[in-house]
């Protein structure tokens, strides 16, 4: 059974000029121990997906329809009190900016102890010992001395390590990592990604890795979901999606990334920009920018269709003779 199943999830923001659909019927699942990358441009809805799963949508955002199932249990209708034993304990979270995600007035050890004692039956002594252990695991030097240190005494990269320890310390089955390396320098990025990869493999934790950086996804994820305008454009094993993209958007996205290996005169570019949520065109949301647009793309919204191991929401997936 899949660890997490998201089924036709719709997230809406009711507003003055009508209701905005920020996530429009997205479906995917995460298997135990798997790393699912979620990639897309800003505003595509990738962070919102994570917030919806953990039940922390900013009001007035709400899950309008669809289901979220964690190990078979529906959690999308859970109240805040019902979600509390799940957050941290079964689904952990890592945020983008390590400088703002830690309470500046509480020592890192205390934040760890507090998190573990909320979810696990631990004596103060055991919790403290485990806190030191976690700091060691995430690679904080001299962990035993630094367990009483405050966040400002750590550098940005070290703080992100502490955040990872906090996300994993109550031993969740799934971690949602929302742009965990975006605020960091490249050489630190590599360290954090390697750490996340190693710890989640060791503990058998699944990861939903949300990022805009295709490179990070390529080397970290098992499967990847490409999001566009609140919908999933393509989802499949990372190698297939990166090397042989099915959806024209994914294809354009890959072409527009400058490469280190070889230099080209011009980058492939997708003209225009992703539509605002207020002005999503009918049919396929990508149709105004698409080079392979068909007549029905402007009218009907394509469902995810299989092509080999990947699924892509594109009418070009349908063999010509199937079109009636």
């Amino acid at each position, binding site marked *: 059974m899949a660890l997490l199943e998201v089924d036709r999830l719709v997230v809406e923001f009711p507003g003055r000029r009508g209701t905005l659909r920020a996530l429009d019927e997205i479906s995917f699942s995460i298997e135990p121990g798997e790393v699912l990358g979620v990639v897309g441009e800003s505003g595509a809805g990738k962070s919102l997906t994570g917030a919806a799963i953990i039940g922390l949508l900013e009001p007035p955002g709400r899950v309008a329809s669809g289901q979220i199932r964690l190990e078979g249990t529906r959690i999308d209708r859970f109240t805040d009190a019902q979600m509390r034993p799940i957050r941290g304990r079964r689904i952990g979270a890592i945020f983008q900016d390590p400088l703002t995600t830690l309470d500046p007035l509480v020592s890192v050890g205390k934040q760890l102890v507090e998190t573990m004692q909320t979810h696990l039956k631990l004596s103060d002594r055991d919790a403290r010992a485990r806190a030191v252990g976690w700091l060691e695991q995430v690679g904080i030097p001299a962990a035993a001395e630094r367990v009483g240190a405050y966040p400002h005494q750590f550098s940005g990269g070290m703080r992100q390590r502490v955040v990872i320890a906090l996300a994993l310390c109550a031993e969740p089955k799934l971690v949602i990592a929302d742009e965990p390396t975006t605020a960091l320098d490249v050489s630190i990025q590599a*360290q954090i990604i390697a750490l996340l*990869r190693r710890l989640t493999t060791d503990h058998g934790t699944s990861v939903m890795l949300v990022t805009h950086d*295709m490179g990070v996804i390529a*080397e970290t994820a098992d499967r990847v979901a490409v999001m566009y305008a609140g919908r999933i454009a393509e989802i499949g094993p990372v190698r297939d999606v990166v090397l042989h993209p099915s959806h024209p958007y994914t294809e354009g996205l890959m072409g527009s990334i*400058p490469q280190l290996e070889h230099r080209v005169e011009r980058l492939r570019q*997708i003209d225009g*920009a992703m539509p605002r949520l207020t002005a999503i065109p009918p049919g396929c949301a990508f149709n105004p920018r698409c080079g392979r647009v068909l007549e029905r793309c402007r009218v009907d919204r394509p469902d995810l269709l299989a092509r080999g191991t990947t699924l892509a929401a594109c009418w070009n997936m349908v063999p010509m003779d199937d079109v009636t």
Partner: protein
Amino acid sequence: MSSVLEAIEVSRRFDVSRPALQRLLSGERRRILTAVDAVSFDIPRATTLSLVGESGCGKSTIARLAVGLYAPSEGEIRFEGYPLSSARAQPGLRRKMNMIFQDPYASLNPRWRVRDIVAEPIRAFRILSGQKAIADRVGGLLSQVGLSPADGEKFPHEFSGGQRQRISIARALSSEPEFLVCDEPTSALDVSVQAQILNLMRDLQQRLGLTYLFISHNLAVVRHMSDRLGVMYLGRIVEQGRGEDIFRNPQHPYTRLLLDAIPDVAMVGRTRAPVSGEVPSPIAPPSGCTFHPRCPLANERCRVEKPSHTRSADVMVACHAVQEGRA
């Protein structure tokens, strides 16, 4: 080929000490941040020099030094053969340089209409007079960067990030410059939009014969844009040369580290070897070669002696290991 901008042993220091009284009472010394440390480069006409490095390496300080927003603490910058400060004092030369900024949301005055934003340099330098002539020119500039002349009536918030960056480019072009400093022009943009802007900048360079100083933290973007390249670490250029040469055969250990650390879509399935350590504070940089605490090749000499730049093939490198043939 004459050089447009030339930097000779330029340093820039900032005083980041605490207030004098407290320093006196606690008996601590002044704290000086050396953002740029004896940097030399020159940019030949109609070419692009890129500077790349991690945060705090001094690349943005150089961008500001190059357009005269900061004065060098030591050394000299020459623009079209004149010392920068005297070049900046002449409107006819000052208008030949302009700048494109990182954050498309902060680089346009939110209270101004786009047409006034783009026209500001035209008015400031009195390049054209008469409302009609200015309006026509602004319309032309907007078309040149891929917007419609009618967009001039709108305010910046009505545009997406990529479109704003186009407006920013139109403004930079309106003073009819020959030299543009581009400070991380695409790092706030999504990749598909980044490709549009990079392509636009290269088209403009070819059409108008522009000279670029291009600042970025993204090696792949730098590789795509530059003729020549400087890799910076803690205020110093550790390796400088033709982009082709450096990417084909990186010599400085830091350049190699950077290249290894970059996640690359082509690397799918492979994992990079992460490098240990973090960038030290530029207020108290390590002794000798500032990179030695993270360097796999460091020895006693590296800890003590600051390496000088030496030419190796066509590339300038500041590294004892390279010089000694240990690299």
